[in-house]
């Protein structure tokens, strides 16, 4: 069947001026993946420096800048935008049977705002970089001689982009669902993106004002965070984590959404506990706003506050576990097909569970005093962010690649890369739990010989990760030119994106679809 694909129009300008959510999603995708590559190379260099005690390849000042850049790039330019703004932009409207997001021009504007913020951050890097860590804690960030102002302005501006994307998605979900698409016939990815969007809209303005105040602190010396002028540096930490803890769920919820899509398709089963998964996304979004103090157990916060934040943090485990149990129950007695997307989804469940459970260690007050700011924390959040979000992302990329580009990726190479990534990931980060337990502090350039062997293993693991990603990037790009043409529905999916051609036409649906069945009705006799 001949149809005009959304990719047909050629020329740079047709991309730069597009208001098509699919094209904007793709622009976000390539931009963020570019930053992911940069952040990844920085991570490899940081690991290389830590391979042996003493100075290995770079001096301490450069090292400080490198881990700061790795963190800031990965958080603000890769992991926050990549799933919502790239895959969410592409698939959210299609999954609810809409022709576009509610405000297409705002969508394009938010892309350019993102690029502007990212450009500022890049200028800051060229201008000497930042050495405060991605958290920009005061009072050091007020005194650091590096480009804190430019970087914070970059974060401030990228925040606006995130807010506008979230706002666009909320309105799209509420107002643009196709006839018959009730809230509870929306695919779970939509629920996840919706919960994410709520956090984006409610939390991001706070990081906006925080970075703005940090800039003012440096430019005008307003003293909000400076004890010398009557301010309180701990206030900065409260502000920062009021955003940055919920931001953790901006990062992880969309990954959970992808896993909820992939598992029923490749287990050929109706998803177990649809409503529980949908509600747990909202529950996570809600709880995320009242736990930020768990980052501040050793910051002179009152014991009562510590106690409350500790209890509340443990509450997050409930909705999270609900999801994990439901995914596992969906797998039970399914006809599981271990294609690459499914392998990544299973890796997600396995690694994220480790990441989540070690989070409980950190939520426990007395344990946290020992583990705070050690490699245990580094390992924990990499298990969540990389073992969780990135695995979810890779599941989503492989799952939707045929739809987005109309080409199949090579399955064997996909599995090979998965092997390198999965093994490499565990080899890199599992030793870090032990390092942290042994007391190795994070962010240090050097360490005593007692920590040497585990650091060595960790660095070798990072090479396996690097190889895995190199293979993946290569075959994905290769498949764009040489890949087998994809059919409309290569995985036998039931959701709406598989009912339209691969790649989709410009307006997604020639006629507005009318929805009569739920999203995952596999193996249900009708």
């Amino acid at each position, binding site marked *: 069947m001949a149809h005009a694909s959304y990719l047909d129009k050629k020329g740079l300008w047709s991309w730069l001026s597009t208001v098509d959510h699919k094209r904007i999603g793709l622009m976000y995708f390539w931009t963020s993946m570019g930053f992911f590559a940069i952040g990844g190379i920085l991570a490899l260099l940081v690991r290389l420096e830590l391979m042996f005690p003493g100075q290995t390849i770079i001096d301490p000042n450069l090292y400080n800048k490198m881990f700061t850049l790795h963190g800031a790039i990965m958080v603000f330019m890769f992991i926050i935008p990549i799933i919502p703004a790239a895959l969410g932009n592409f698939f959210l409207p299609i999954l609810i049977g809409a022709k*576009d997001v509610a405000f297409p021009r705002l969508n394009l504007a938010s892309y350019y705002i993102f690029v502007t913020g990212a450009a500022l951050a890049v200028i800051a890097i060229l201008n000497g970089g930042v050495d405060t860590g991605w958290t920009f804690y005061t009072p050091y960030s007020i005194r650091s001689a590096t480009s804190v102002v430019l970087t914070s302005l970059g974060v401030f501006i990228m925040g606006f982009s995130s807010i506008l994307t979230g*706002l666009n998605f909320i*309105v799209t979900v509420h107002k643009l669902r196709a006839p018959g698409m009730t809230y509870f016939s929306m695919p779970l990815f939509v629920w996840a993106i919706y919960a994410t969007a709520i956090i984006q809209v409610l939390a*991001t303005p*706070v990081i906006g004002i925080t970075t703005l105040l940090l800039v003012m602190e440096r430019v*005008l010396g*307003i003293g909000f965070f400076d004890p010398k002028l*009557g301010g309180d540096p701990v206030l900065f930490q409260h502000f920062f984590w009021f955003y940055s803890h919920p931001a953790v769920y901006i990062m992880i919820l969309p990954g959970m959404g992808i896993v909820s899509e992939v598992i029923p398709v490749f287990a050929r089963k109706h998803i177990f506990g649809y409503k529980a998964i949908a509600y747990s996304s909202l529950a996570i979004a809600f709880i995320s706003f009242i736990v930020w103090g768990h980052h501040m157990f050793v910051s002179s916060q009152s014991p009562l506050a510590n106690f409350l934040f500790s209890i509340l943090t443990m509450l997050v485990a409930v909705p999270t576990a609900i999801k994990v149990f439901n995914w596992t129950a969906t797998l039970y007695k399914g006809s599981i097909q271990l294609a690459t997307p499914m392998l990544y989804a299973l890796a997600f469940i396995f690694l994220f569970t480790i990441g989540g459970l070690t989070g409980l260690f950190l939520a426990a007050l007395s344990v946290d005093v020992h583990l705070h700011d050690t490699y245990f924390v580094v390992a924990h959040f990499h298990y969540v962010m990389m073992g969780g979000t990135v695995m979810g992302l890779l599941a989503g990329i492989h799952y939707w690649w045929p739809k987005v580009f109309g080409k199949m990726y090579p399955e064997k190479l996909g599995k090979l890369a998965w092997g390198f990534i999965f093994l490499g990931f565990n080899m890199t980060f599992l030793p870090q739990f032990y390092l942290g337990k042994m007391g190795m502090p994070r962010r240090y350039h050097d360490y005593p010989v007692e920590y040497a062997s585990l650091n060595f293993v960790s660095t070798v693991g990072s090479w396996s990760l690097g190889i895995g990603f190199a293979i993946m990037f290569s075959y994905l790009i290769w498949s764009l030119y040489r890949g087998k043409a994809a059919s409309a529905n290569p995985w036998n999916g039931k959701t709406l994106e598989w009912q339209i051609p691969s790649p989709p036409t410009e307006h997604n649906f020639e006629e507005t679809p009318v929805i009569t069945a739920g999203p995952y009705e596999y193996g249900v006799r009708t």
Partner: protein
Amino acid sequence: MNTHVVPHHFDSADQAYQASKLGIWLFLVTEVLLFGGLFVAYIMYRAMYPEMFHEASKLLSRPMGAINTIVLICSSFTMAMAVSATQRNDSNRANQYLIVTLFCAAVFLIIKYFEYSHKFHEGLLPGMYFTFEGLNHPKAPLFFSLYFMMTGLHGIHVLCGMGLILWMLIRSNRGEFSSQYFTPMENTGIYWHLVDLIWIYLFPLMYLIG
């Protein structure tokens, strides 16, 4: 005259209207949270240094603050009248109201300009630039940091609002709005009321606590 075409991705004009409405309210929520950070800082530092806040507040000009409050409330009123005139297809009347709204906003900023320059002159500046001698409290600069941050951010919002109102005036003049289509006008009004509302909180918190 109604030349407005519903964008292709909406099924009806009403759906488009509902979407924009939800969009602008969500945007207001983000604005409240943006200012929220400053209000939290205000609450915290006022609780820490109550006497200093009392003393410092006396240095602000109450008459000027009060006049500005009245001016902004008037502008909110004329903005609402402009929206309602548009809904009644009376774009001439709407344009007149928009001009008055713009005028009020300008008066607000001019008064603010005089207040600011007076403060600059006396050395009542934020944080480390504070040089005023007559206030015997080591943390007094903090009050003026808050004052300039909060009223400054608000002032930027007034400027943005003026830009939007001017744009509405131009579009209304071109006859783009009618009782059938007035979404941008109404949304600008909603935004403008928020700007007004924030000032209504700022005025007592800054000027009237002395």
